[in-house]
């Protein structure tokens, strides 16, 4: 114990270098842990976004692409599919439920999704949880009703009965708006921690109604305009939708139906199993994750080598210190232990400070990361894996500390008390 006190006192004597060294280690540890944290949380949030859906069907593109735009609202659809294709498969005897989705519009950067009541009834996330309304009700027969995700309502301060205008396209600042047909907020969903929170849900009829008087890609001018009231009395059955989700009666028939959809003669369609597409997405991201992890490991290594350099360079100027210790009865192994303890103390301080830095960082950036990237970073205890990483760093520091320890051990034997200046 007195050795540890001595090591601390010696470090305190050189506190400026010591603090800098510990800080370098802290930064590197923080980076390593942050990379690990973001990786696991991103995976968890992706995995918990969709559950219970057996097939997702869209226009023919790639499976990862279809999964990203239909479920995660990342990227854009390549093409629409016809409404009668949806009806054809929704009435298939193998199908238990079907949710149509129509995407492409937005409201202040939040995506708008046209769907039916089936969405609130059958869509599942997390561990087979259903969507729940925090306030109000699902949209009903009137086309101009909207149900907000929890985050949309919170960030834009909307409450029931508010009117809002949807914008054409998905840019955060939109220049073309559907301002002649405002929507009324009728419901607000409970928070789910999924992209549903950042989505505005309208009926397919509403989606059709806001585009009903569009001609050649621009809204109609003058007499061609159709007012909201006129639109209400028109046939609002959609011609096309973007994608649909299917739940099947029997999971065994998944492949059969997937095959049937992929070979549908009416139009080219693509059906994917969300679990498989997610797995493909992960193996895609896996490479980037590994690269990031290796880089942050090297940064930690750099921090530890910095510590080694600092201790090694201090050895020369501390010859006198060592000699005095020897003269008052310290044995060579005392000197060696002293140096190993010093390295360990520096690394421990670094790891602790790094952990603290990580939590301060998460606490500060939590809100921003959630709203900008939809990624929720919880302030939980470090996982088992993170503890292992930190223990590994400390072990590496001990190993590194043994290098100056060995040198001091040898020198203290050779030098003894004879100081050659």
């Amino acid at each position, binding site marked *: 114990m007195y050795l540890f006190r001595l090591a601390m006192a010696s470090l305190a004597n050189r506190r400026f270098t010591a603090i800098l060294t510990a800080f370098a280690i802290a930064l590197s540890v923080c980076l390593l842990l942050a990379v690990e944290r973001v990786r696991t949380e991103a995976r*968890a949030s992706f*995995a918990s976004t969709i559950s219970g859906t057996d097939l997702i069907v869209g226009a023919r593109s790639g499976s990862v692409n279809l999964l990203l735009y239909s479920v995660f609202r990342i990227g854009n659809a390549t093409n629409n599919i016809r409404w009668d294709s949806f009806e054809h498969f929704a009435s298939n005897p193998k199908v238990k439920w079907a949710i149509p989705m129509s995407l492409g519009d937005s409201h202040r950067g939040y995506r708008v999704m046209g769907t039916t009541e089936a969405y609130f009834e059958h869509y599942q996330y*997390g561990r087979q949880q259903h969507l729940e309304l925090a306030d109000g009700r699902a949209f009903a027969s009137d086309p101009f009703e909207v149900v907000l995700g929890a985050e949309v309502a919170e960030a834009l301060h909307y409450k029931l009965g508010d009117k809002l205008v949807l914008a054409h396209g998905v840019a955060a600042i939109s220049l073309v708006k559907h301002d002649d047909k405002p929507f009324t907020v009728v419901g607000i969903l409970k928070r789910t921690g999924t992209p549903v929170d950042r989505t505005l849900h309208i009926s397919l009829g509403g989606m059709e109604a806001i585009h009903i008087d569009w001609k050649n890609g621009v809204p109609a001018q003058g007499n061609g305009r159709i007012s909201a009231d006129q639109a209400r009395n028109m046939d609002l059955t959609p011609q096309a939708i973007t994608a649909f989700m299917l739940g099947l009666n029997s999971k065994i028939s*998944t492949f059969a139906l997937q095959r049937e959809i992929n070979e549908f003669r009416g139009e080219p369609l693509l059906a994917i199993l969300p679990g*498989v597409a997610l797995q493909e997405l992960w193996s895609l991201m896996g490479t980037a994750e590994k690269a990031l992890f290796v880089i942050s490991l090297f940064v930690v290594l750099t921090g530890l080598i910095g510590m080694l350099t600092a201790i090694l360079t201090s050895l020369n100027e501390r010859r006198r210190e060592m000699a005095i210790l020897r003269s008052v009865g310290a044995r060579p192994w005392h000197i060696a232990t002293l140096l190993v303890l010093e390295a360990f103390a520096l690394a421990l301080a670094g790891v602790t400070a790094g952990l603290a830095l990580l939590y301060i960082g998460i606490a500060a950036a939590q809100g921003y990361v959630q709203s900008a990237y939809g990624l929720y970073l919880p302030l939980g205890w470090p996982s088992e894996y993170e503890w292992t990483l930190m223990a590994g760093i400390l072990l590496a520091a001990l190993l590194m500390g043994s290098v100056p320890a060995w040198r001091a051990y040898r020198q203290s034997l050779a030098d003894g008390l004879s100081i050659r200046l």
Partner: protein
Amino acid sequence: MPRALLALLLIVALPLWAAEPRDLAWSEMIPPDAPPEVPNMTPLHDLSKMGDALAAESAPAAKQDLPNAPVVKALDGQQIRLPGYIVPLEVSEEGRTTDFLLVPYFGACIHVPPPPSNQIVHVKSEVGVKLDELYQPYWVEGPMQVKPSTSELADAGYQMEAQKIYVYELPE
């Protein structure tokens, strides 16, 4: 006395021995009396019908031949061990697959029909399995449940509540 001990040991060990799963081959899941599949090989005499034949071959290609393939009822309740590929259906937040289809082959081979329903096992697992590669085969152990087809809606098929899932390695 030693004999009594031995007998006791045997009694204790018996249920253990009984629980030892039996290795099942995928071919055993097709009933031996299942009607053989006869390829359509009617000769084409009239060349003017060549177009029809080609059209039939070109598109809606391979459908699942037997969506309600017959199952082997004797397998119901048996403790078995089956190797196969995992097609994830449900992934937990920890990234573990808790609900999946086990199939004898996997990959992007779209030239032949998907496996018939008696070559697919719907597996549920409480703990789940951490899947790194879709192309990694696994052993799955557990009691088999056989559901014979009852109606048009529910497909016949095999189900299993997995007790153990581990990586299949090539026998050296």
